[in-house]
């Protein structure tokens, strides 16, 4: 899968914490994972949903150990990158406005499966945008977990 975004700043936090106390590595890993889950949750709030397959393929995985830990937030659906990068496609409010008539005229079950009002916040860049918008919060979660702050 394509590498979409990397959050900068975690390396600097790691460097500083490591210099203070090398024993804090467990907390660092926990913090990274918590931050990953937070990003996944924020991404789930804006990911486009048609049948729900894309949304259901989200995941967060921690790799490595101690100070070498890393966390990946991902979508395994094969069209995830396509939906993420096609910023010209209509999602959310724009979709609802463009297809207002089709949505209103959908009567059969088959029609209603395709034409229904999408969540207004749904959009492309459903992983990159939350990562940028919540960068400060993500870094705070990592630092907080190391220091034992809840």
């Amino acid at each position: 899968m394509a590498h979409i975004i990397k959050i900068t700043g975690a390396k600097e936090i790691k460097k500083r914490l490591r210099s203070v106390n090398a024993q804090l590595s467990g907390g660092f890993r926990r913090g990274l994972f918590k931050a990953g889950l937070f990003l996944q949750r924020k991404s789930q709030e804006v990911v486009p949903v048609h049948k729900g397959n894309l949304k259901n393929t989200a995941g967060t995985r921690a790799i490595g150990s101690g100070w070498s830990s890393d966390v990946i937030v991902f979508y395994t659906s094969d069209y995830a990158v396509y939906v993420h990068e096609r910023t010209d496609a209509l999602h959310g409010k724009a979709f609802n406005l463009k297809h207002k008539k089709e949505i209103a005229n959908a009567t059969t079950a088959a029609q209603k499966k395709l034409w229904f009002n999408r969540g207004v916040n749904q959009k492309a860049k459903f992983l990159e945008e939350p990562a940028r918008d919540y960068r400060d919060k993500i870094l705070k979660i990592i630092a907080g977990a190391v220091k034992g702050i809840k």
Partner: protein
Amino acid sequence: MNETPAYIIKSYLVGEGLLTDPADSGDWPVYTGVLPDSPEVVDDIVACMDTSGVKDGRSMKTGVTLFHQGVQILLRSEDYNDGYAKVQTLADALAEIQNAEEVISGTTYEINNVTQTTDVIVLSQEEGSKRRGFFSVNFLVTITVL
């Protein structure tokens, strides 16, 4: 800024001769904010899209908040390999920018820097008979109004 970062980048790429204005009916027309698909539009086209940027703190000296705006180059091509080569050329051209000036409607913009944040992302070939290729590449840009 009166123009969006994507429009400024589009204008720069047209000025460099890498892309053309759709009104000129040349090769590789470039649009802003939309990737049109209709019988009147050629298959090989590029779109510059505005995406989310990054807030990178505030200058203690001036109080100015520093933003790096997000720009995406989205490309559609009839030939898969041609599309990949073209998007790579565009990415290389943008990577070389260092304080390039771009004048649009009497306003001078300085494109200080363009940072590529992803590799060229292959969005697969289109379903159906046309099988056109789609590619994207993302950037963070720093633009100031002179």
